[in-house]
């Protein structure tokens, strides 16, 4: 394990920010730390990095106990914080070079790494710019470059796509995959389930400072009873239709949202044909019908009773 967190407890007076939080990260994977805003993701990262003190628990990074002066461990870590953290009066290149210099002493190697990082985040046209002259997306790229320029073995990315336009977001996500392909282990915190689904090998779902479940995308979805959702819209209203749909085999729940009926199924393999049979038997006309596999939001919903973005 490259990171091992065991029973971490962090209190802010009466508030419990981390409640016996545990997780493990394997070398070479992209681990997604997924949870709604304020669930304790950033606090967990800051405790793992020894930036924050904690009340209880143990943290091991790269096989050693993590402490604020564990400089040998810090040398192998890269951090991309949620907020852009660069020097406002240093140019793009100077910022990247400064942060690289904190890890790499050799000047020629440093120059090479800085160039690579600039290419990686595609900021070549902006190397002489001050951060205040950059757009939000470009600033985020600079923020990433400063965190990964020294080619760390372990990278923490704390919601790097928050407040970023779609184009920059895709660019950042592709870059993260590339970093992982080049050998870095990545811990990625997000509240965007699409990102976690697309990017991460394994996911830890957090809520209220607790680690609820962890596993691969498929493993997590297999943990819940809902295996399929079918959304159907009928051309006319029919009293008592929800009750009758509920009698179809394997249906768990039927809800109505803006005229659409959302039907949750469990473990059935003929759910659509069962539903079509029901429609024909009842002489109903449908204008829309499609099937959806469960998402991480469904996993979260079933575990906590609320959506990820509620």
């Amino acid at each position, binding site marked *: 394990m490259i990171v091992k967190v065991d029973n971490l407890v962090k209190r*802010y007076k009466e508030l419990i920010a981390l409640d016996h939080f545990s997780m493990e990260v394997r070398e070479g994977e992209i681990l997604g730390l997924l949870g709604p805003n304020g669930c304790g993701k950033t606090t967990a990262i*800051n405790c793992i*990095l*020894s*930036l*924050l*003190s904690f009340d209880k628990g143990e943290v091991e990074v790269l096989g050693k106990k993590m*402490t*604020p*002066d564990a*400089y*040998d461990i*810090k*040398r192998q*870590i890269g*951090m991309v*914080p949620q*907020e*852009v*953290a*660069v*020097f*406002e*009066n*240093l140019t793009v290149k*100077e910022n990247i070079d*400064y*942060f690289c*210099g*904190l*890890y790499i*002493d050799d000047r020629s190697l440093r120059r090479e790494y800085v160039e690579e990082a600039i290419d990686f985040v595609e900021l070549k046209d902006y190397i002489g710019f*001050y951060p205040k002259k950059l757009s939000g997306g470009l600033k985020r790229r600079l923020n990433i470059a*400063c*965190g990964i320029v020294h080619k760390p073995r372990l990278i923490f990315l704390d919601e790097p796509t928050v407040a970023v336009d779609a184009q920059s977001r895709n660019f950042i996500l592709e870059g993260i995959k590339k970093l992982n392909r080049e050998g870095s282990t990545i811990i990625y915190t997000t509240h965007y389930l699409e990102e976690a689904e697309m990017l991460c090998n394994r996911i830890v779902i957090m809520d209220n400072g607790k680690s609820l479940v962890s596993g691969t995308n498929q493993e997590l979805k297999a943990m819940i009873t809902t295996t399929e959702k079918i959304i159907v819209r009928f051309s006319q209203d029919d009293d008592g239709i929800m009750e009758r749909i509920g009698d179809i085999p394997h249906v768990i729940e039927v809800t109505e949202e803006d005229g659409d009926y959302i039907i949750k199924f469990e473990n059935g393999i003929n759910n659509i044909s069962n539903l079509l049979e029901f429609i024909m038997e009842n002489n109903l006309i449908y204008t829309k019908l499609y099937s959806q596999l469960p998402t991480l939001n469904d996993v979260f919903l079933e575990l906590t009773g609320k959506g990820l973005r509620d």
Partner: protein
Amino acid sequence: MKTLLRNCIYQGKNVYRDMGFLFWGLIYPIILVSFFYIAFSGISNIGLEDIDIGMERENPISAILETIDMVNIVEVPRKDANRNLAEGNIDGFIDEDLNILVNDSGINQTMIKGIVEQIKQMNSLNRPMENYDFEANYIADRDQEANGILVIFYSLIGMVSTYSVFAGIETVSLAQGNLTNIGARLNITPLKKKDFLFAGIIVALAFNLLANGLLLLFIEFVLKMNLLREARYSLALIILGNIFGVSLGIFIGASNKQSIGVKTMFAIASTLFLSFLSGLMSPDIKIILDKNLPILGRINPLAIIGNSLYRVNLLGNTKDVGVGMALLTLYSIILIFGAYMFLRRRNYDSI
């Protein structure tokens, strides 16, 4: 050593390009000194102008007054005295009975009154007028007046020598994980906090000393005021002022979680207030405090710098300057120790 040098270079660039530093460290002091120069040049120039005293041709004291270089006798008939006073042709009129007519109150009028009083006294004592050196006495008085204004300039130099306080605040804020995003980021890197702070202190001192040097060159060559005649002590006092300033900045920066802007305003307000007490806005404040609360002048760091600069440069008096320097050093040590108590924690309860 390499780490220190790299940090000095990059922190130096960060400070040097900061408009706040440029303004408060360099432009503001030059504006202030220029403002004081313009505001007080009228008063200080009095020392260079003659006093025009009107009197009638046959006035017996005219022969005495003619011996005083700074006095210019203007022959004015008694009946035209008021008109000449009103038109500003003369500063005062002395009649045969040594009565004085003035139309204004000011140093020149006070001096005319003083001269006449002296003549009256010499007359009453039946002492020969030749024995009295009017010029020596009154020139000394006028210098005293001008020197009071110079207190303002020495106080100003004292104040700006402590302006390393701003870079001190900036440095400590950048180093603290619970104060800035960069601080949080730096705390995760292998960079030791003390290396970053030490580089910041070097940069703060270097830049503020440079800014002080430019201000002194401005005073010397643009305003043509030769204020620092005793270089050795002056330099030591200015360096100590810089060290005190950066120590104060580090203490202010480390002691609370307010924003850099709030801390900077606090630093400006506190240095300005201490400078005010040391006579920056008006020498009268300093005189009143020296008379009624002398301890304040001895413990106020800005007054120590300003007063010591005044004494060593104008009066050639180095007595007690060593005590002042020791006090400044002590203050700096206390502030650095206080800051260390805040900074020594290795991680944070909250960020």
